[in-house]
């Protein structure tokens, strides 16, 4: 397929989609076997929007691509969606999420051992917000539930994939010996 046409098709699909579209999904719709060709076209499109100094950007998040507004124009977008209040996660929720992100699949007992406090309420909220999911059961007495992060987790934090968060070794504790 001609390069320009392929890029335009991808532009349409990304414009219309309300969630990130993966390379494989794009390949399936456009019916092109060669994923490299698609990846190249999406990256071209992404660069084009950057160079154009547009209000929109093509973001590479949650293992896919999505059209999003630029951060600097958030005030105007927020005015349009007056009713939408931005919610932020509480410190316990963020703490629990970070433990799950690094240790997944992980049980509630394991999370609570690290945090030192009861975590059942936080887990319920995170499940409701679809930031975590039940990924299975551990082969232990009582078959405890295992938790893991979701695509929505990646999307919410603007991460391409889990490798984008720094490894635990990279994190420098502020006070240490």
């Amino acid at each position, binding site marked *: 397929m001609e390069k320009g046409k392929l890029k335009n098709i991808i532009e349409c699909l990304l414009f219309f989609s309300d969630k990130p579209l993966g390379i494989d999904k794009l390949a399936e719709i456009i019916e092109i076997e060669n994923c490299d060709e698609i990846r190249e076209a999406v990256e071209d499109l992404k660069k084009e929007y950057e160079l154009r100094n547009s209000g929109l950007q093509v973001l590479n998040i949650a293992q896919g691509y999505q059209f999003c507004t630029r951060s600097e124009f958030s005030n105007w977008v927020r005015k349009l969606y007056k009713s939408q209040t*931005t919610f932020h996660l509480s410190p316990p929720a963020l703490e629990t999420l970070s433990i799950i992100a690094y240790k997944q699949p992980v049980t509630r007992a394991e999370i609570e051992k690290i945090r030192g406090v009861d975590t059942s309420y936080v887990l319920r909220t995170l499940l409701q917000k679809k930031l975590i999911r039940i990924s299975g059961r551990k082969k232990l007495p009582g078959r405890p539930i295992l938790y893991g992060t979701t695509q929505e987790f990646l999307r919410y934090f603007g991460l391409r994939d889990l490798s984008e968060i720094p490894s635990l070794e990279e994190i420098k504790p502020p006070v240490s010996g």
Partner: protein
Amino acid sequence: MDYKVKLEVFEGPLDLLLHLIKKNELDIFNIPIAEITSDYLNYIKLFRRLNLDFAGEFLVAASTLIHIKSRMLLPPTETVEEEEPEDPRAELAARLMEYQKFKEAADILREREAIQSTIYGRLPIIPGDEDYTIEATLFDLLDAFQRVVVQAEEEVREIIQEDIRIEDRIREVLSLLENRRFINFETIFSGQTTKRLLIVTFLALLELIRLRMVFARQARPFGAIRIYRTKQELVAQT
């Protein structure tokens, strides 16, 4: 009046301990356990005095601290000569280090959240299948039916006497649902030219809902209605 204030400042005992370590610029691997224990217990007393509702875990940690303190006071137990006696604080230090790392990781996530919350993607336009979760009430169905009748009235002119049986309509509605998970409410009535036919079809639908062979669902109150087929297994049971 007896009221409790939920303690939000410190999420848990480890949080409080880290706060005390930072405040006093202590070394995590060489915590002066007697000092920190008395500091910690002072906080617990303060919580009590302020009538703060604190988690039981705070007391568990207090007893751990006291336990470590008492072990520090005892002479090290006789062990194999060359083996260095284990520091009773080692486990606590390791736990604090680990917890601290995750707190840092949480801060990284918080920064990302702040950035991401200013970036907007398109909102979903077409309600997905899973959005149809509200059970439509009889009144919703009546409203929807009335809209169908009003629309049909413009087309219906002739009154033809015909014999329609509700059983036949039930069978036809079910056949519409064959090989499909759902159909739109309006679809059931499309192509029906007489008021009588519309009414009998509506009654057939109500009967199917009563028999729990189909479900009427909406994505939002007063929204469009979809008719879902009950799973085959369920029908077989009833």
